């Protein structure tokens, strides 16, 4: 579903080349829950941005759901992001001026869904995260955990090939974090692949696989399959 071959990323200034990610290979299969861990500055965010088509890579090949994304135009990448990837951000990134319904509906507006289909998808997604009854509320009327649930609903509404979660519990207390992790595992159990970047090793241990990034080098740590059983 997601395959990266000899992928590398470097940043250049006039005189200095900074290798953010050393060439690496990675494959995430349909239905897998993969955690990416590493200390600050290790290249986690760069990896996440590349996986989410938010940033270009310098060399290698990236195939997403069978489609080689190398050399795609900005418009094609936008479309692919919209259709294949569901993003969950650490800061939720909800739009404060829009109510929950409109927030969840927002990415669907960039696709050719009819209004009734959009409505159906939004309500299904909100139902899935347990917030359908609060569709007319605004983000600031919710707790952090509820806001992240809305963000998850937004990610799910477009039926993506996989979820890309960037520190999804980073801004939450432990109780809310547990709730979110539990929700993510439920979603994964229904067949949606998840690639989660986190600095929390305990949460990472709940994934099927753990990829560690250290100084731009990716390595598979272990496969704690028993952890999600």
């Amino acid at each position, binding site marked *: 579903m997601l395959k990266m071959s000899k992928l590398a990323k470097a940043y250049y200034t006039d005189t200095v080349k900074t290798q953010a990610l050393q060439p690496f290979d990675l494959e995430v299969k349909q239905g897998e829950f993969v955690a990416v861990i590493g200390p600050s500055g290790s290249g986690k*965010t760069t990896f996440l*941005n590349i996986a989410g088509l938010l940033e270009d890579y310098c060399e290698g090949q990236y195939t997403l759901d069978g489609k080689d994304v190398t050399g795609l135009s900005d418009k094609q990448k*936008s479309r692919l992001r919209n259709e294949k990837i569901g993003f969950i951000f650490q800061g939720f990134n909800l*739009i404060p*001026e829009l109510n929950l319904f*409109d927030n969840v509906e927002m990415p669907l507006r*960039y696709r050719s869904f009819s209004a009734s289909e959009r409505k159906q998808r939004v309500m299904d997604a909100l139902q899935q995260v347990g917030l359908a009854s609060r569709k007319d509320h*605004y983000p600031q009327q919710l707790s952090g955990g509820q806001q992240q649930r809305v963000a998850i609903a937004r990610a799910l509404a477009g039926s993506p090939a996989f979820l890309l979660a960037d520190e999804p519990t980073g801004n939450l207390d432990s109780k809310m974090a547990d709730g979110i992790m539990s929700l993510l595992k439920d979603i994964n159990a229904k067949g949606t692949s998840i690639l989660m970047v986190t600095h929390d090793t305990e949460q990472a241990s709940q994934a099927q696989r753990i990829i560690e990034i250290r100084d731009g080098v990716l390595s598979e740590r272990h496969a704690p399959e028993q952890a999600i059983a």
Partner: protein
Amino acid sequence: MKDLKPILSTLWRSKSAPLLLILQIAVTFTILVNAVYLIIQKEALLIEPSGLDEEVIFTLHTNVQSSEAEEMIALVKQDLRDVRALPSVENVTVMNSFPLSDWGSYAPTGLGPTEEDMNIYTGYFTGDEHAIAAMGLELIAGEGPSEAEVQDSIDFSADATQAVVSKGFAELYYPDDWRAILGTTVYLNYEPFIVKGIVKDLKSVWPGWYSHANTVLIPLRHISSNYKMLIRSRPGELEQAKQQVVRELMKTPGRQLDKVMDYQQIRADKFKSETAAIKTLYWVIVGLVLLTLLGIFGQARFTVVKRRKQIGTRRALGASRTDILRYCMTENAIVTSVGIVVGVICALLANVQLVNHFDMAPVPVVYLLQVAGVILIVGQLAVCQPAWMATRVSPALATRSV
């Protein structure tokens, strides 16, 4: 218009900045519509035909070297003969005043001799048998005065009994059939005059006057110690004619010439204040449009800077650059349109005041539409750069913590 609902929701939830912009646009619109209308009205005055063949005409004031009535008349006739004989001069006449000049006469007129009948004032000109031809007026009915019918008048003392009137004058009294005025008697200053001819157009001295198009031309050779001559040059020989006439008249000892002016100059002098007002209004418009442009630009740019993270999120969630551009342009179009709607109401209210206090005609709807179009375009132009800036926001911004 798939962005409409989220844009409206966003604007509704954060009203203050859009409201200020709406207010600015509305004020701009109000002033702009009325300023444009004032300019158009004033410009219409500037180009309104006087009825004269202005390109080949010039006028002058000169003195008569006598104070005896008979001698004055003889000297003026001699002046006219001398000027008419010049090769560059096609015709010449003596008049009491000229359309658009700085001085003129008017008279109460009516179809009867009583005070109640004298219900309107009209522009009043005198001229000899050459006046119609010299001015280049178009005689559209009846005939002009013959040489024999022209009386010599010292200080309006002669008793003329005939008149040539403008079509405007004829329509005033015979709106259904203006030709019907021919041969009828009209009263000027309580004196009867038989209408002998109708000219297509002859304007009064005062543009903007309610009776500007209603004039009469009386067959009088009006002579005073300082009389006025209107000279028609041959086509393309205006400057030459001016020089020849001045040279010829100055042959007379004691001659004084004043205000030797072609009609371009007379017109420019007449409309000096209007021209200045138009220029001022133009600058007001330019300033206002610029201010609005800057206001919209500043607001749009501020909004983009404030929403960088949000734009990055939208991009990450699948919005293409075109989607972002369309969102920004649509948002601006909505704010501008609301401003225009408020502006239309304010402009109409302001116009009602102008109509009531300054006797202006109500502003036509077409001006509202045109100014609305201009402001909409200005708004879209102003938002181009900030919108383009928004499209450059990287989707990777969505994953950054600041």
